C-alpha cells in the first residue's frame, strides 16, 4: 500500500488503517472531531451498561447478604437434630417438632460442647402507641424465638438488660427498640398464638454487630414461653448442637444417631444454611428475572440509539467515505475505520458505565424502598464476573449496532462524492426496498407473536424465555416496519399539526417524514418503553378487575377480617370463637393455609370452619355437603375438593384418600363434598380442627363473617371491629373494601416496574434528542435560509419541537398498539389462572400518551435552542 505524502490528512488517515497503532490514533482523532455527535451515543452506552452493571451488582449484593444472613443465622451450629420429613424433600420438606427432652439426650453425647432447643415462629411487636412492626407485604418478617443465650450456638448478644427470666419478659432487637423508642423495663405488646400479650422488655440485643437480623424484627422469649406462644408446649422445632471439635462432625453425628434413635434426623449446620438459601432463592428468583429483564430492555433501547447515531453519522459522512473510495481506499478499510471508531466509543463509554453501575444499584435499592419493598442491608458486593459481563455486553452491543451502518459506509459508491447532497432521503413508498421491508418486518413480527403465543400456552422448557424472545422479535419486526408506517402516520398526525401550527407545523411534519428510516428507528426506542408500560398497565388493570370480580362474586360474607400475613402468622383462632358469640353474626369461618401430602402428592390445603364456610364463600353447586348432614362440618375425617381437582385425581363424594399432615401420621379422609368453585379456585379444604389435632397451631389469614338476618352492614361491621380491636394486626373490611384491598396488592410491584420502565423511556428521550441534534446539524444551511427570509427564532424552535413531538407520537402510537396486543395475549393466556377480565384503562393510558408527548417536548429543548441560536450568516455559509 502506497502512502502519498501530498494527500490530504483525511486520505492519509484512512490509508494507514491497518497498522494497529495508527488506527487507534487516527480513530481517536476522528472521535475528537465529532465528539459532539458521539456524546449521546456514549451516553446511551453508558446508561445501558450502568443499568446492567447496577442490576448485577444489586443482585450480587442481595445474594451475598442473603447468603450471609443464612450463614450467620446458623453461625456456630455444627449439627442439628430434628424430626425426619413427614413429606416433601429438601428445602420443601414439612416435618414435625421434636420433644424437649431430646436436648438433654443430645447434650450428653461425647464431643457435644453445647446443645439447645430452638423454636421460632410468628410474633409481632406492637409499641405503646399501637405501632406494629414487621410488615410482611414489604418483606419485613416479624419473628419470634426462644432466647438461647449461648454464644457457641447463636450470634445474639444482650447489649442492655438481661435475658427473659419469666413468661412475660422479652428481649427485642436494638433496631426495634429504636423504632418503638422503648428501653429496658418498658411495656410492649406481642401478638402471637393466643392473641395479644402484654410483656416487659427485659433486654435489648444485637445480632452480632448488627442492630437487627437482616431487616427482620425479632422478639425473644424464655424457652417455655416460646414453645407456648410460637409452637407447642414441651417441644422444639430443632435441637442445635455446637461441637468441641467441629472437624469431628461426622463421628459425633453418628454417635448422636445411635443415642437418640432412628426417629430423628441429624444434619450439619451447612445443610441448614443450604436449605434456607434454597427457599430464599425460590422466593427471589422472580426478582432476579425481573432485574435481568430490565437490564436487557435498557440495553436494547440503548442499542437502537447507538445504531441510530452511527447510521446518521455514516449518512452524513457519505461524501467523505466516497472520496476515500474514489482515491483508492478499500471497502475493508472504510469498514474497519467505522468499526474501530464504534469500538472505541463502546470501550470508553462502557468503562464509565461500570462506574455508574454502583450508583445505579444504590438507586435501585432505594427505589424498592420507596415502593415499600425492604431489601436487606449489607455492603455493596461487586463481583468481577458481573463487571466483565456488563462491560462485554456494552462493547458488544455497540459493535453490533455499528455493524450495519459500517457495512453501509463500506458500500458507499465512489460516485457519491460527486453528488451534491450527501443526505440520504429515501424515495417515498412503493420501492422494492420497502416491499422486502414489509415482507421481512411482517414475518419477524408474526414469528415473534407466534413464539409468544406458544410460550404463553406453556410450550417448551422455558416458556418465559420464549415469551420474552417473542416479545423482542415483535418489537424488532415492528421497528423494521416503522419506516413504512412513518409517512402515513406523518400525514395522519402532521396534517392537523400543520393546520394548527402553520409553517412551523408543516416544516415539523415534513422533517419528521423526510427520512422515515431515521424517524422510525428513533421512535422505536420509545416504542419499547411505551409498549411495555402500556402492556403492564393493561395487565395490572385486568388483574385488579379480575381480583375485584373474583372477590365480589366469590365472597358472600358481609365482613372480612384480614391479617395481612400471607400465611406467616395471622389472626388468633380465638377471634373466630368470639365473633361467633356475637348476636349480630350468623356465620363465621377462618381460613388458614397448610400443606399436606394427599395420596402421594404434596399440595397446598386450606383449613376452614367448615360448618359455616359454605355460607361465606360462594362455592357454586355442591355434591355432598361441607357442613355435613348434621351441620357440624367436615370434622376430623372428611375433606372437600373442587370439581377440577376431583376430576383430575379421580375422586368423588365418598372416596377415601390417604392424607399426611405435618405430624407425619397418615389419615384416611373421605371426600365429603365436591364443589363447583366457579370464582375463587380453592385448594382442598379440611376443617381447621383437623390441623389442630395434627399438632399445627394455625392462625387465620382471613376471617369471614355473615351478618345475622335483619342486621345491616354497618351494625355488624361495628360489632366485628369492636371484637377485632384487641388484635392490632386485624383489618376489618366490608366486602367491597376487601376486594379493593386485595386488588391493591398489585400496586407496590407495579410502582417498581413503572419506575424501571421510566428508565427505558429516559434513554429513548436521549435518543430523540440525539437524532434531532444530528438532523439539525445537517440542516444548518436550510435553517439559515429560513432565518434569512424571516422565520423567527420562536418559529424555528417550534418546528424542531413539533418534529420531536411527532417522532415521540409515532413511537407512542406503535408502542401502544404493541402494548395492547401483548396485554390482550397475556391476559387471555392467564384466563385459567383466574385473570378473567380484560380491561383497557383509558385514563392511565391517556396519561402514558401525555407523558410520551411531554417526552418529545423535553427531548427537543436543547436541539431547538441550538437551532434557534444558529448565527444566520454562519449557517448560510455552511
Amino acid at each position, binding site marked *: 500500500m502506497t502512502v502519498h505524502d501530498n494527500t490530504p490528512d483525511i486520505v492519509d488517515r484512512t490509508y494507514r488503517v491497518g497498522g494497529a497503532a495508527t488506527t487507534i490514533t487516527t480513530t481517536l482523532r476522528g472521535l475528537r472531531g465529532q465528539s459532539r455527535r458521539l456524546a449521546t451515543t456514549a451516553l446511551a452506552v453508558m446508561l445501558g451498561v450502568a443499568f446492567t452493571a447496577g442490576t448485577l451488582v444489586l443482585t450480587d449484593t442481595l445474594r451475598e447478604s442473603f447468603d450471609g444472613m443464612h450463614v450467620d443465622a446458623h453461625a456456630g451450629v455444627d449439627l442439628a437434630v430434628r424430626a425426619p420429613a413427614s413429606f416433601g424433600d429438601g428445602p420443601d420438606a414439612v416435618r414435625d417438632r421434636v420433644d424437649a427432652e431430646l436436648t438433654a439426650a443430645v447434650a450428653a453425647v461425647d464431643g457435644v460442647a453445647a446443645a439447645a432447643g430452638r423454636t421460632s415462629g410468628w410474633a409481632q411487636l406492637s409499641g405503646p402507641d399501637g405501632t406494629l412492626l414487621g410488615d410482611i407485604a414489604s418483606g419485613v418478617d416479624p419473628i419470634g424465638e426462644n432466647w438461647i443465650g449461648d454464644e457457641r450456638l447463636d450470634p445474639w448478644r444482650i447489649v442492655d438488660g438481661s435475658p427473659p427470666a419469666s413468661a412475660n419478659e422479652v428481649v427485642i432487637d436494638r433496631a426495634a427498640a429504636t423504632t418503638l423508642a422503648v428501653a429496658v423495663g418498658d411495656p410492649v405488646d406481642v401478638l402471637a398464638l393466643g392473641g395479644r400479650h402484654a410483656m416487659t422488655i427485659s433486654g435489648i440485643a444485637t445480632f452480632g454487630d448488627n442492630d437487627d437480623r437482616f431487616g427482620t424484627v425479632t422478639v425473644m422469649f424464655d424457652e417455655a414461653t416460646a414453645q407456648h406462644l410460637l409452637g407447642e408446649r414441651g417441644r422444639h422445632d430443632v435441637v442445635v448442637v455446637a461441637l468441641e471439635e467441629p472437624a469431628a462432625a461426622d463421628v459425633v453425628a453418628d454417635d448422636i444417631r445411635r443415642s437418640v434413635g432412628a426417629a430423628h434426623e441429624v444434619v450439619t449446620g451447612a445443610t441448614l444454611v443450604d436449605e434456607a438459601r434454597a427457599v430464599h432463592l425460590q422466593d427471589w428468583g422472580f426478582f432476579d428475572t425481573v432485574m435481568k429483564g430490565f437490564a436487557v430492555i435498557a440495553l436494547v433501547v440503548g442499542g437502537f440509539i447507538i445504531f441510530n447515531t452511527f447510521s446518521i453519522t455514516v449518512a452524513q459522512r457519505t461524501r467523505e467515505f466516497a472520496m476515500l473510495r474514489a482515491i483508492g481506499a478499500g471497502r475493508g478499510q472504510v469498514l474497519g475505520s467505522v468499526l474501530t471508531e464504534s469500538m472505541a466509543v463502546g470501550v470508553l463509554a462502557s468503562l464509565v458505565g461500570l462506574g455508574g453501575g454502583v450508583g445505579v444499584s444504590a438507586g435501585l435499592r432505594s427505589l424498592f424502598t420507596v415502593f415499600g419493598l425492604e431489601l436487606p442491608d449489607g455492603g455493596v458486593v461487586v463481583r468481577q464476573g458481573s463487571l466483565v459481563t456488563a462491560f462485554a455486553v456494552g462493547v458488544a452491543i455497540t459493535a453490533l449496532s455499528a455493524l450495519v451502518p459500517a457495512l453501509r459506509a463500506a458500500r458507499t459508491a465512489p460516485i457519491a462524492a460527486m453528488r451534491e*447532497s450527501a443526505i440520504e*432521503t429515501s424515495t417515498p413508498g412503493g420501492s422494492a426496498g420497502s416491499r422486502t421491508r414489509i415482507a421481512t418486518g411482517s414475518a419477524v413480527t408474526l414469528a415473534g407473536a407466534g413464539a409468544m403465543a406458544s410460550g404463553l400456552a406453556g410450550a417448551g422448557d422455558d416458556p418465559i424465555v420464549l415469551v420474552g424472545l417473542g416479545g423482542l422479535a415483535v418489537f424488532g419486526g415492528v421497528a423494521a416496519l416503522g419506516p413504512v408506517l412513518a409517512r402515513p402516520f406523518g400525514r395522519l398526525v402532521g396534517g392537523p399539526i400543520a393546520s394548527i401550527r*402553520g*409553517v412551523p407545523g*408543516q*416544516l415539523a411534519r*415534513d*422533517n419528521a417524514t*423526510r427520512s422515515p428510516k431515521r424517524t422510525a428507528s428513533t421512535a422505536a426506542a420509545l416504542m419499547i418503553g411505551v409498549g411495555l408500560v402500556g402492556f403492564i398497565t393493561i395487565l395490572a388493570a385486568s388483574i385488579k378487575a379480575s381480583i375485584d370480580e373474583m372477590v365480589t362474586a366469590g365472597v358472600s360474607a358481609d365482613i372480612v377480617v384480614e391479617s395481612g400475613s400471607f400465611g406467616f402468622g395471622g389472626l388468633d383462632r380465638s377471634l373466630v370463637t368470639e365473633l361467633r358469640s356475637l348476636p349480630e353474626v350468623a356465620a363465621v369461618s377462618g381460613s388458614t393455609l397448610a400443606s399436606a401430602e394427599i395420596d402421594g402428592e404434596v399440595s397446598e390445603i386450606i383449613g376452614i370452619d367448615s360448618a359455616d364456610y359454605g355460607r361465606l364463600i360462594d362455592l357454586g353447586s355442591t355434591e355432598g355437603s361441607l357442613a355435613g348432614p348434621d351441620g357440624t362440618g367436615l370434622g376430623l375425617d372428611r375433606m372437600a375438593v373442587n370439581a377440577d381437582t376431583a376430576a383430575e385425581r379421580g375422586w368423588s363424594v365418598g372416596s377415601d384418600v390417604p392424607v399426611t399432615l405435618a405430624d407425619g401420621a397418615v389419615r384416611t379422609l373421605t371426600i365429603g363434598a365436591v364443589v363447583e368453585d366457579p370464582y375463587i379456585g380453592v385448594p382442598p379444604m379440611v376443617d381447621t380442627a383437623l390441623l389442630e389435632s395434627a399438632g399445627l397451631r394455625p392462625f387465620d389469614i382471613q376471617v369471614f363473617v355473615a351478618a345475622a338476618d335483619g342486621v345491616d352492614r354497618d351494625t355488624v361491621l361495628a360489632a366485628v371491629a369492636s371484637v377485632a380491636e384487641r388484635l392490632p394486626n386485624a383489618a376489618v373490611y366490608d366486602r367491597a373494601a376487601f376486594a379493593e384491598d386485595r386488588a391493591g396488592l398489585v400496586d407496590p410491584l407495579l410502582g417498581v416496574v413503572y419506575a424501571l420502565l421510566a428508565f427505558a423511556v429516559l434513554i429513548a428521550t436521549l435518543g430523540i434528542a440525539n437524532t434531532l441534534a444530528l438532523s439539525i446539524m445537517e440542516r444548518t*444551511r*436550510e435553517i439559515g*435560509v*429560513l*432565518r*434569512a*427570509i*424571516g*422565520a*423567527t*427564532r420562536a*418559529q424555528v424552535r417550534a418546528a424542531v419541537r413539533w418534529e420531536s413531538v411527532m417522532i415521540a407520537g409515532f413511537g407512542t402510537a406503535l408502542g401502544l398498539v404493541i402494548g395492547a396486543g401483548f396485554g390482550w395475549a397475556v391476559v387471555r393466556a392467564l384466563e385459567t389462572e383466574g385473570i378473567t377480565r380484560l380491561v383497557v384503562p383509558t385514563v392511565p393510558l391517556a396519561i402514558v400518551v401525555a407523558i410520551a408527548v411531554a417526552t418529545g417536548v423535553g427531548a427537543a429543548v436543547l436541539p431547538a435552542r441550538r437551532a434557534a441560536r444558529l448565527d*444566520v*450568516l454562519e449557517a*448560510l455559509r455552511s
Partner: protein
Amino acid sequence: MPPRPLTPPAACVRSAVKRYGTGDTAVTALDDVTVWFPAGSFTAIMGPSGSGKSTLMHVAAGLDGLTAGEVFIGVDELGAMSDNELTRLRRDRLGFVFQAFNLVPTLSAYENITLPIRLAGRRIDTAWVDELVGMVGLTDRVEHRPSELSGGQQQRVAVARALASRPEIVFADEPTGNLDSRTGSEILAFMRRAVREMHQTIVMVTHDPVAASHADHVLFLADGRIVDQIDDPDPERVLDRMKQFGA
C-alpha cells in the same frame, strides 16, 4: 460617490465600517462606505473577490451588524433593532436571492415561494403569486420539490419568492453565479422586468459585466470602499472599468 437621489432611497448605508477580528488579524471588510439605493432602481455591485460586496449586502439586509455607521431601510435604522425586529423586517420588507441552495428542500416550489408570507401568517395573494409563477415560467412545476428542479428553475423559484411579498428591496448575491449564461440571462431579464414593470428595487452582486449591464447603476467596490459608479451601463464600459480596478 453617487449623487444623492431626488426620490427617497429604498435603503441607505451611511459611513459604514465593518471589521472582522481584532489586532493583527483584523480585516476591514467595509471601510467608511456610504451608499443609497434609489427606490425602483436596479443596482449592480461589482468588485474583486474579497472587496466586501457580500458584506455590504449582509449589513444592508440586517443579517449582520456594523462596527460603525448606520443602515436604513426606508426611514428605519437597523442598528437599534432586536433580532426579532430584524427578522420581521427581512420577512415583511426584504427579499433575498443567494447564489445557490436558496430553498427549503422539504417544501414544494409553490410552498417555497409563499414561505415568507406564510411565516408572517398573512393571506397569500394568489393572483399575484400565480402571476409571478407565470412570469418565471414555472406554472406547471410549482408542485415539485427543489430536488426535482434544475438549478436555473431553482433560482427562478428563489427570485419569485423574493418578490412574492412585494418587498421594499430585494438583495441578490451572485444569483446567476452558478448558472450557464443563457439561464442566467433569463433570470436577469426577469429581474429587470420586475424593476421596470413593478417598480421593484433590486440590489445585485455580480462578477459578470453582461449581468451588470442589465442594471441602472453599477457600483464598484475595492478594499471595502466604493471606488466608482457607472449609470446606464453597457458591457464594454463595465468591462473597461473592471480592468481598471483589477476585478
